[in-house]
């Protein structure tokens, strides 16, 4: 019997098929990662215990109303001025009796240092726009970041952001990062919102 010849499969269109798939995945793929402001919520507390009293001088009060206006320490300001004000407050000044007090705290790598007892209290209205809320949050985080950067630069010769980036690589850097973080702890307290002034 004669051998039947098996013809070779034409693979010429394989490239076309692969191209088709490639274009599909190119279009559907999303490379961008989500970015944002990372914050921690406080855990739910027992209401039976009254909160410890805090001296007025240690609190930096920020109120945002339904018309997106800012009242900081009883003063009406623009959001662009907030960062400088917050920085001044967080840094504190031992000679000024209206600025936060200091507490001597032992921090590894820094020894016993005065840490300011600052607390930022943020209260917004139910009618405040989310955009404004983010702006305020952003300025506060920015104020802490700038102070930490300055401090880290002065103590360790590197900005804080660099320490954070490299904290995974060595324990020494991680310790430095933690020390800076302890020197300027981020204390932003958000009060339960109230329905005050202004229309929705």
């Amino acid at each position, binding site marked *: 019997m004669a051998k039947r010849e098996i013809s070779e499969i034409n693979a010429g269109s394989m490239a076309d098929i692969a191209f088709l798939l490639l274009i599909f995945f190119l279009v559907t793929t999303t490379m961008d*990662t989500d*970015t944002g*402001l990372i914050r*921690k*919520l406080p855990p739910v507390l027992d209401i039976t215990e009254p909160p410890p009293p805090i001296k007025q001088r240690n609190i930096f009060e920020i109120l945002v109303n339904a018309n997106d206006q800012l009242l900081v320490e009883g003063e009406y300001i623009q*959001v662009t001025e907030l960062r400088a004000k917050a920085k001044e407050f967080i840094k504190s000044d031992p000679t000024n009796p209206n600025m936060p007090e200091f507490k001597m705290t032992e921090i590894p790598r820094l020894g016993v240092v005065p840490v300011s007892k600052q607390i930022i209290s943020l209260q917004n209205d139910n009618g405040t726009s*989310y955009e404004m809320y*983010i702006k305020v949050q952003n300025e506060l985080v920015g104020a802490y970041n700038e102070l930490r950067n300055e401090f880290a630069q002065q103590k360790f010769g590197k900005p804080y952001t660099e320490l954070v980036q490299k904290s995974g690589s060595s324990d020494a850097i991680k310790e430095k990062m933690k020390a800076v973080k302890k020197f300027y702890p981020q204390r932003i307290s958000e009060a339960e919102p109230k329905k005050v002034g202004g229309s929705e």
Partner: protein
Amino acid sequence: MSKFRKKGKKGQPAVNTAALPDIVFMLLFFFMVTTVMRETSLKVENKTPKATEVAKLEQKSLVAYIYIGKPIKKLQAAFGTAPRIQLNDAFKTLEDIALFVEMEKDARDQVERNKITWSLKVDEKTKMGIVTDVKQKLRKANALKLNYSTKKTDKISN
């Protein structure tokens, strides 16, 4: 004449394209591996605000998304224009958040459960009332690590 006579005209030889499928396959596999399919279709308007101090969320698998905003134009006839919460693929109410938190936690390994970041994708025009309510619910459900999703910008204005 001689037997070394050249046969016919000699044109430019064609470029060998035999390796083309290989190259394309390589690219294809790269995109197949890196691709993350869009899991949800947005039902709310979602233009996140801009901020300067943004950080990247590193592990995508450890992020759960909560969308808040006005329903999109197409759905406004049915759902109105009041801001709504979207979890996964559907509109949900505040009461569903606790369940959503539990389900997201269940879907992940034991060790990773406390590392989930809850990314709030809120439209910039939304009022804080609903956002605060959602935050309180998350707090009660012990979902404390939040991310306010924002885009990066160099400068913010008043």
